[in-house]
């Protein structure tokens, strides 16, 4: 631990990684590793889907709604397609959407939050008002509206989901910046006449960046659910693409006679979101010792 911080100018990633590894035996550390393990497994499933899936996801391979067993570990759905194969292929869309969406939210939310928190004044008040209004609006409804406007497609859904989570990044970063700004070392840098850009880059950003991995994983879990909600409502994806939420929407009317076609896709959504939350909560405990006992959601909302 000291080895990492004593070097002073180690890269941010190095410092975070150091703190992270040193904590890997604590409860929080174990939770993070379990979460990362599960997420990586699902990523591997998605990447190697062509080799891992026993059947083609879009081909009828058996009679409709064959119960689990034999060659069909999780049964077949109402179109006679293998549920397991569709789940393996179906990991691709949620993962892609979440990766793209959280990146878009970060790329937009972080700089605006930095600016708003650092500059303050009227600009800050206007931005906070706008972001709070988006935040107070039901996220799924916002995503539905955007998805309905811009049409179907993986990128389009990513954008719809991204808009919902921009305010979260904005709020956390902005509040964090506003408090870091009061620190003596920032005030000293201002007094010494350092340029704003350098102050932000050198002192503010490294401090604030610690919150990013936490919001990132917590938001990722949330956006998996938003994505699944959208596709469950039949929005967003062109037909024929395997996706967990979309598969549930195709099969849920027959839940009572063929439970497996609805149950397993949902189970995988739950596993992915829980794993992402484990990563987020564990990282929160490790990376933010000062905030350790504060709930991140609560911090974002005050």
């Amino acid at each position, binding site marked *: 631990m000291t080895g990492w911080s004593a070097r002073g100018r180690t890269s941010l990633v190095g410092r975070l990684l150091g703190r992270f590894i040193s904590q890997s035996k604590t409860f929080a550390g174990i939770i993070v590793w379990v979460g990362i393990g599960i997420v990586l497994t699902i990523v591997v499933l998605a990447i190697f889907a062509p080799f891992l899936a026993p059947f083609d996801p879009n081909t009828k391979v058996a009679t409709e709604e064959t119960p689990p067993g034999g060659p069909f570990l999780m049964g077949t759905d109402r179109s006679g397609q293998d549920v397991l194969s569709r789940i393996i292929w179906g990991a691709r869309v949620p993962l892609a959407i979440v990766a793209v969406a959280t990146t878009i939210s970060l790329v937009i939310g972080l700089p605006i939050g930095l600016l708003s928190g650092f500059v303050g004044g009227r600009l800050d008040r206007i931005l906070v008002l706008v972001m709070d*209004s988006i*935040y*107070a*609006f*039901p*996220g*799924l*409804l916002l995503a*539905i*509206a955007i998805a*309905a*406007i811009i049409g179907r497609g993986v990128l389009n859904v990513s954008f719809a989901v991204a808009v919902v989570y921009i305010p979260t990044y904005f709020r956390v970063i902005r509040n964090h910046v506003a408090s870091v700004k009061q620190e003596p070392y920032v005030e000293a840098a201002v007094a010494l006449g350092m340029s704003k850009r350098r102050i932000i880059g050198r002192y503010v950003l490294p401090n604030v960046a610690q919150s990013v991995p936490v919001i990132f994983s917590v938001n990722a*879990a949330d956006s998996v*659910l*938003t994505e*699944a*909600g959208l596709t*469950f*409502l039949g929005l967003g994806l062109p037909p024929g693409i395997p996706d967990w*939420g979309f598969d*549930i929407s195709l099969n*849920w009317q027959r*839940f*009572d006679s063929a*439970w497996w076609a*609805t*149950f397993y896709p*949902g189970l995988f*959504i*739950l596993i992915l*979101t*829980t794993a992402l*939350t*484990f990563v987020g*909560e564990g990282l929160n405990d490790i990376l933010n010792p000062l905030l350790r*006992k*504060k*709930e991140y*959601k*609560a911090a974002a*909302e*005050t």
Partner: protein
Amino acid sequence: MAGSTASLRAYVITRVALMFPMLFLLVTFTFFLLRVVPGDPITAIFREGTPPDVIDRIKTQLGLYDPLYIQYFRYLRDVFTGNMGTSILTQRPVLQDISYYMPATIELTLSSMLVAALLGIGIGTFAGTRRDRLPDLGARLYGSLAYNIPIFWFGLILKLIFAVWLGWLPVSGRFSPRLSAPPTVTGLYTIDSLLAGDLRAFIDAISHLILPSLTLGIVLSGFFVRITRVNVIHAMGSDYVEAARARGIPEQNVFFRHALKNALVPVITTMGLTFALLFSGAILTETVFSFEGMGRYVFQAIGYRDYPAIQGAVVYYGILMVIISLFIDILNAFVDPRIRY
């Protein structure tokens, strides 16, 4: 004492006065947002193959070709006279549609909020007072799972078990078609049936409400478990609890009179914000249980670019949110005098 009531009154008046500019901004924003985005209701409803002159005539009738500012002022006038227009999709006045669908959503959200608060605060305090022990871990796991479960999937599972397999509760809808619905007073079937003194109708309405509100309530309780747990831990470690213990106050009193009261203030504050979450969940829950509420209505309205319906729903949602946040702010100002202006 007199001074503090006066400042509370001043606070309430200021907050109520602030409601109007907020609503005005919301109405304006929604109007222009809907006009900026591509697509319009008539094209969305008629799809392809309709002769262009028919579409043109209907659009002229609806005033969709008028200059934007004229449409805007006409719309503002209508809103302030309480006229939300006619839904292009259902051909009924939006106000009538909303007064039909809104009570269902109010019934659903309020009962879910009750479930969420009872479960969440109960489990959260239980966990917070047993920090890092087995019950605490169990409660945290419950919180994580409840918060992360896909709500529509969870609803389907509850429905399969309790409605289809066990047959204890109705599968879907708000009311059994074989019973006659109580005369409309509030639109809430539970309250209306009580007002009419119809016990069978009341039990029927409640039994239809149980599964949807358990679905939504349990999912939301995950959020409350986390918030409550953290705040209880925080309060239990605070100076005033330490001081109360040092004075020899029995642990039970320390907990209820000192710790819990302070721990619940932030929980109340976040309650207001969870209404957005609640409404997102309501869209999915209403879909799963064929519960005819605002969530479904707005979802359909968006799909068909039904401007009057969307605008009406947003205005109503805005009014609801403003009232809720006003209520929560006043509640907090009442509990914590530092908040008042």
